[in-house]
């Protein structure tokens, strides 16, 4: 009987759901490390944090959940599979060069009536098609990735049904929907320019990918003035944006187009000037040579990436990164399409496939900016440590590019939007002066080091 009187022992302590703190009460002390709490308390004066539920309160230990463990397992398996595939594929620049030789020899031997330049023309066409498809598939992937990342940053699931596994086919379904959609546009539009504008936005970004070195001997063309070439063509996209705004016969569109142009023209300056030290040190405008210059290691293990050049490299990197985000018209800098003020900005009056081309271009610019950050600051296809060179250069290039693309998505869902005047002040009064200072700081490198 005594046994009955005593209460039964509590069941194995299941992960008790964290008690939901009532509104306006700080979460329990243990949830937020004291150091972080101190820093935030100083800036927010208790106005922001008390209402906020920290992720650790909602989900104390994710590793206890079986689905989380399974997800981590699948993810690491995917990464391992990619690494293994890269290891066995090796450098693909060499077999591609051999393929080109074969094509030329085949044309010479079997098709004597075809002029000699035709084989090269076919080869160039093939390269252009490959680059085009990289851009298209990048759009397909990045839209899905952005939706997943934004969802997880806001404790949502994002696309989950289409394509069974985590909604991988959601973007493809959306693409088909956009193809079938009615192409609605205002009656007063300038119909030629309204149709031309998406093309004018997209074509420059396609051209911009020409000198990007995807790995060793993997650039579509090794242009001697590659950096200049990329900046020149990227500047043309703004023409399409302004025209899209003007041709729509809508004041919101026009405002969005003009804002975008002001932003683009301003941020192009610090973006170019932040690269001057790098170009001076590497002594070339060719992307392949710049990436090649950063191969090798200091003391045998520390990569010679421009990012790690003391002071100059970091200032350049930060300015270039900020200006790149601004050039892609994405959220901290998306005043061109600020939904709360301008409806949709320059693409308010676009629908269907025309709209999706603007969308595709935005993601293509994210890819381009990531490729450039990788090439200029992270040594292109150079491995981070000497023994990791067993993996091919294109694998490292893609890895670093994916990392920067993630950063772009991360920024978008973390920072609030600038106001237009703050945005331009930030550029002209902060970024541009510091990029000039940076050029002066680079002088010792050029004069002392290179002698």
């Amino acid at each position, binding site marked *: 009987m005594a046994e009955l009187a005593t209460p039964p022992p509590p069941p194995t302590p299941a992960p008790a759901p964290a008690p939901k703190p009532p509104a306006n009460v700080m979460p329990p002390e243990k949830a937020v490390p004291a150091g972080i709490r101190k820093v935030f308390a100083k800036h927010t004066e208790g106005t922001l944090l008390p209402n906020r539920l920290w992720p650790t309160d909602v989900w104390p230990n994710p590793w206890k959940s079986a689905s989380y463990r399974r997800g981590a397992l699948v993810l690491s398996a995917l990464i391992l599979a990619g690494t293994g595939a890269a290891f066995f594929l090796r450098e693909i620049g060499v077999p591609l060069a051999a393929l080109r030789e074969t094509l030329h020899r085949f044309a010479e031997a079997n098709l004597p009536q075809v*002029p000699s*330049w035709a084989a*090269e*023309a076919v080869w160039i066409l093939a390269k252009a098609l490959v680059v085009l498809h990289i851009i298209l598939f990048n759009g397909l992937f990045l839209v899905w990735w952005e939706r997943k990342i934004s969802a997880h940053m806001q404790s949502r699931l994002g696309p989950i049904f289409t394509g069974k596994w985590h909604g991988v086919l959601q973007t493809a379904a959306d693409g088909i929907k956009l193809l079938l959609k009615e192409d609605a546009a205002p009656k007063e539009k*300038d119909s*030629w*320019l309204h149709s031309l504008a998406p093309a004018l936005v997209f074509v420059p970004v396609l051209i911009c990918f020409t000198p990007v070195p995807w790995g060793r001997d993997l650039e579509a063309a090794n*242009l*001697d*003035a590659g950096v*200049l*070439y990329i*900046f*020149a*063509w990227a*500047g*043309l996209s*703004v*023409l399409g944006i*302004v*025209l899209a705004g*003007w041709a729509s016969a809508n004041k919101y569109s*026009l405002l969005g187009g*003009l804002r975008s*142009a002001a932003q683009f*023209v301003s941020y192009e300056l610090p973006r170019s000037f932040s690269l001057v030290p790098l170009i001076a040190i590497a*002594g*070339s*405008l*060719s992307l392949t040579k710049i990436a090649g210059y950063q191969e090798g290691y200091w003391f045998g293990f520390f990569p010679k990436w421009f990012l790690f050049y003391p002071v100059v490299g970091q200032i350049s990197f930060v300015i270039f990164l900020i200006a790149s985000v601004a050039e892609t018209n994405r959220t901290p800098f998306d005043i061109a399409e600020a939904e709360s003020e301008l409806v949709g900005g320059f693409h308010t009056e676009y629908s269907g496939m025309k709209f999706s081309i603007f969308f595709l271009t935005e993601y293509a610019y994210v890819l381009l900016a990531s490729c450039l950050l990788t090439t200029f600051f992270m040594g292109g296809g150079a491995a981070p440590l000497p023994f990791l060179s067993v993996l091919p250069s294109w694998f490292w290039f893609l890895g670093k590019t994916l990392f920067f693309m993630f950063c772009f998505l991360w920024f978008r869902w973390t920072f609030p939007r600038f106001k237009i005047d703050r945005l331009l002040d930030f550029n002209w009064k902060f970024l541009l002066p510091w990029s000039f200072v940076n050029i002066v700081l680079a002088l010792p490198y050029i004069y002392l080091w290179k002698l």
Partner: protein
Amino acid sequence: MLTQVLFCFLAATAVASAIGVVVVRNVVHGALLLGLCLTMVGGLYGILGADFLFGAQILIYVGAIAILFLFVVLLSGRRAEFAEKPLNAMAPQAALAAFLIFALVGGILAQVREALHSLPPAAAATTSSVGDLILGRYAIAVEVLGLILLVALVGATLMARGLDKERV
């Protein structure tokens, strides 16, 4: 062969768009055609092997000047269409002047054509050789040019501010 095909395409487009700039009534279309014309001229530099000039042409003439034209047109608040005819009473004189300039350029070309053909082919001009010339042999000329542009910039700002004060 490939170069010749490209040259014909670029040159024909450049000429057609240049005519379009003058003929088209809509100012925005005109600015856009100007951009096209300048791009095609840049392409001509490209097939001549002048990479740097090609990039600079696109960056400055198309990326900056054509866009500036477009800005001015959009911000000036005028109607986009010209009401007047593109031709007026001055047309014959203008045609004569155009023909004379054309004849002058053609004459000069005919004179120097032989000399041009007898020149040895230029070494491939790389970006670094262009840079050496700009910052070495012609450094002073480039700096003076930069100074003139700076003066023009400051002057323009000053004039714009002065106008604003009068208006306020």
